[in-house]
């Protein structure tokens, strides 16, 4: 990588890291793992930087992150460390939405990595099912089934949502 490419790569990383680290954090649920995931994706991008000169490198970085997360899950990185008590407790709050958001955050972090990955891509990245399937290298049916299972788990983890009237409309 020559000086020009190095300067372009540094500019790209500095400008896009705040966005990319959020996605990585959502995928991993933890800061250090998210940094490691993003660093791996950026290293792979740097190795292919000359081939990406004409194209926008950000989609490549994102795709590498998604696939790397699935690969890590397959390699056993998904094993959770058991603790006696959950690190964060949902406390009662006068504002119902804050309670609900915290509970939802906890439920999202408890999702299996592959299901959380699909939820992040669908609801945070606003990708369609086809785009998610293309990014993950799987079929649209797989994306749908994973999304449905993830939503079922979120609903099961938050039974108070029915009382709040959030799920009054029910599932389609």
């Amino acid at each position: 990588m020559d000086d020009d490419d190095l300067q372009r790569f540094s500019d790209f990383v500095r400008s896009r890291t705040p966005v990319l680290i959020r996605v990585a954090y959502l995928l991993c649920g933890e800061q250090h793992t998210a940094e490691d995931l993003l660093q791996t994706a950026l290293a792979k991008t740097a190795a292919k930087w000359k081939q990406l000169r004409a194209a926008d490198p950000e989609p490549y970085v994102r795709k590498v992150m998604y696939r790397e997360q699935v690969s890590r899950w397959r390699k056993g990185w998904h094993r959770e460390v058991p603790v006696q008590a959950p690190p964060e407790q949902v406390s009662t709050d006068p504002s119902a939405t804050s309670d609900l958001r915290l509970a939802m955050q906890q439920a999202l972090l408890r999702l299996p990595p592959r299901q959380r990955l699909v939820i992040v891509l669908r609801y945070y990245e606003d990708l369609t099912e086809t785009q998610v399937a293309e990014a993950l290298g799987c079929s649209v049916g797989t994306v749908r089934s994973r999304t449905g299972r993830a939503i079922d788990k979120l609903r099961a983890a938050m039974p108070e949502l029915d009382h709040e009237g959030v799920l009054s409309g029910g599932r389609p």
Partner: protein
Amino acid sequence: MSQQFDELIRASLRDLAGKAQPVDLTAQALDRAQRGRRTSLALAAAGGAALVVFAVPVAAAVSGGWQGAAGDKPKPACKSKPAPSGTFTKPVPTPTVTKPVPSTTFTKPVPSYTVTKPVPSSTVKKPLPSYTFTKPVPSAKTTNPEPPKATPSLSPKPKPSFSPKPQPSFSPKPRPSGGC
């Protein structure tokens, strides 16, 4: 699913993403990429060396096996043919072969007129074809000192096959190194 539930998921995801702390990963990413490239090159070199080390003997064995596939025995032309040398260009005639054995020993009989008793045949080492002919009949009148002349038909002729004729057609050329 209700719109409110979707919005709750989106809001929760945004809150979660806001917890991430931006860091500068440029140097780490570049170091990692360089390390990965170095590792890839080292692995490729090791793989190439291993391929050469293992493939060359295997290829040699396979090429040797193809010759042996035609038959278990190696080709005799390759092994038994001696390499030609300059001494073979002109065959040296052997005088012992070319010259016929002088027939004097055969033609000249033992002067039998002095011998009253003929030599027993057992003492003769080589049974000569002219033995019966040379056996003189003892007679008192045979005072002729001349030995009986052998008929020319009984004299051994030199074998014509031993005539040393250098074969002009034999001109050894330097063999190619690998040809058989």
